[in-house]
């Protein structure tokens, strides 16, 4: 018994040490950003770096309200990301339902086509998108940026949601049909509440991707539509990089993601359908 206990202890200690190392590697940049954001620009460049320094909130003030404020860009990012997410969900939910349940002609082919769009490297699409948006007159416009983002988020969202919907036993819907629900009512009352977890996950990923997107934003945006990822670049110039302000801006840009992550996490847990059907449901 004693021997087994000590083996178990050793195993736990090893796992804990490994996890700590991995966590440290992962968290270090974040911690460093926090540290840097609280320093003055001069302090950042001090060598060797000092552990003890006079913390200041000036960088956050400057990043938000200074000469090169990221506040307008934050609002732009919020508009673009929210609109992309809402439109994606509005289109992807019925599309995923159709893929999961309806007998459509060419469904397999359509499914592959949807997935195939994900296989093209984004860099290869920048120039075609630029030319198209230029022709339509949608360069540096909200509708242009959101449309481009939808081309990436929709295939991803549809495929994620299809897997959630396929997990729901067909009898569930058939029972709803026999209970005189039409297809829309069955989707609304019976299917959607059970894929809440899947929708929450989809929202997080779509919002996160749109919020963090840089390549298309920098090429297809401009002065009207300048998301926060692009705006942060204002702190980097040929002559110097304002590390402290850049760190502060980066930390501010993370806040919405963290809020969404925490709120949606509860929904993911709620979305589990344990005990719905004998031997069925997402366990």
């Amino acid at each position, binding site marked *: 018994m004693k021997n087994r206990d000590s083996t178990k202890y050793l195993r736990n200690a090893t796992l804990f040490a490994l996890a700590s190392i991995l966590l440290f590697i992962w968290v270090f940049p974040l911690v460093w950003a926090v540290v840097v954001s609280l320093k003055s620009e001069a302090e950042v460049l001090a060598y060797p770096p000092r552990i003890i320094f006079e913390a200041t909130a000036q960088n956050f003030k400057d990043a938000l309200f200074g000469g090169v404020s990221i506040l307008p860009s934050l609002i732009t990012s919020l508009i673009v990301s929210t609109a992309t997410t809402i439109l994606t969900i509005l289109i992807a939910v019925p599309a995923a339902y159709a893929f999961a349940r309806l007998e459509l002609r060419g469904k397999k082919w359509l499914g592959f086509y949807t997935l195939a769009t994900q296989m093209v490297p984004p860099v290869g699409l920048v120039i075609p998108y630029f030319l198209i948006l230029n022709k339509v007159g949608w360069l540096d416009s909200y509708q242009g940026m959101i449309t481009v983002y939808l081309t990436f988020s929709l295939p991803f969202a549809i495929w994620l949601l299809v897997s959630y919907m396929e997990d729901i*036993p067909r*009898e*569930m819907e*058939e*029972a*709803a*049909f*026999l*209970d*005189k*629900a*039409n297809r829309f*009512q069955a989707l609304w*009352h*019976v299917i959607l*509440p*059970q894929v809440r977890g899947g929708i929450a996950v989809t929202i997080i990923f779509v919002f996160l991707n749109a919020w963090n997107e840089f390549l298309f934003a920098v090429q297809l945006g401009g002065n009207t539509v300048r998301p926060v990822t692009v705006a942060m670049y204002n702190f980097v110039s040929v002559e110097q990089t304002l590390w402290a302000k850049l760190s502060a801006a980066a930390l501010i840009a993370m806040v919405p993601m963290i809020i969404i992550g925490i709120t949606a996490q509860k929904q993911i847990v709620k979305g589990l*359908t*344990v*005990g*719905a*059907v*004998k*031997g*069925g*449901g997402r366990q």
Partner: protein
Amino acid sequence: MSSPMNQSKRAHGRGRVSLRGIRKSFGTFEALKGIDLDIEPVEFFALLGPSGSGKTTTLRVLAGLTPPDEGLMTVDGVDVTHSQPGERDVAMVFQNYALYPHMTLEANIGFPLKMDGVPKNQIPGMVRDAAAKVKIDHLLHRRPGQLSGGQQQRCALARAIVRQPRLFLLDEPLSNLDAQLRLETRVELKKLQRSLDVTTVYVTHDQEEAMTIADRMAVFLDGSIVQVGTPDEVFNKPSNVDVAAFIGSPSMNLIEGHLNGKTVSIGDYRFDLPKLSNHPSGNVIVGIRPSHIALGGAGLTANLYLSENLGESMLLNFKVGDNLIKVRLPEVRSFTDNEVVHLTFDSAHVHLFDPKSGIRIDL
């Protein structure tokens, strides 16, 4: 089988169902090969057959969940062959219950009422009544995941009976319950059906379940209905060899024999069937249930192969040539290995079948 009370209800009752020439294929598999069926109002009707025989497909055709390739279905004279499930006024209990996991029992049972446009203030009362009938009215605020299998099954029943449907469909509703609960629920289900006066179609592969619960039943084999009748008729006058082998547990002994006038011979054993009228002589298949064979007398010589003690009775397996003959003895006594005995058949309970077609020869 049906009481006079039921007879009078049938005359003006609702829920008369008829199927004519229903065919359904899935790819190359022919699931239903032309089904004709008439179900009377208020009847408790069982669809019995082994798995893959087409009974569940027939139920789904009745529900409108599986549209037939060919054929006609009417309910109370109205053609509903191509109606949507919701337009048929049918309720169904699924084998896996298909309860809505995110809703409380109250919401589950009330869902059909809500969809049917029943005024909101009437729903709680109707839900409570239905739940009380299956004794789950104290669980209404729980969710399906917090219930036992038996309670889930009752919830599925309550959801089906809450809006008094024209037709009540049950797909192996007891198969997920343990043996003890299955027997109890079987009795309650029968009582419930009597009190509701709703035409009920019940799918099962368990012949004992069908025998005890149904007013009439249809026996399915291989995509066709081979016999329709009361449990008594199906048990005592199986229409062919397959039905004879399927109904009854342990199953009927089927032995090759020869018919000459009114005399049947199996090997050296001969017995007369006085009621038999004018059937040409030739080979026949002799069917006899294990409980209709007695030991002793000038009978069929047999070797004891295996004896099973069932407590109050014994099940004996005898070898006669290559055939295995089962005998149920209403008493328990001891036998020696390979003991030689003589088996005599109760001629009142002998069945004869044509060896080529398998069809019953009427006695």
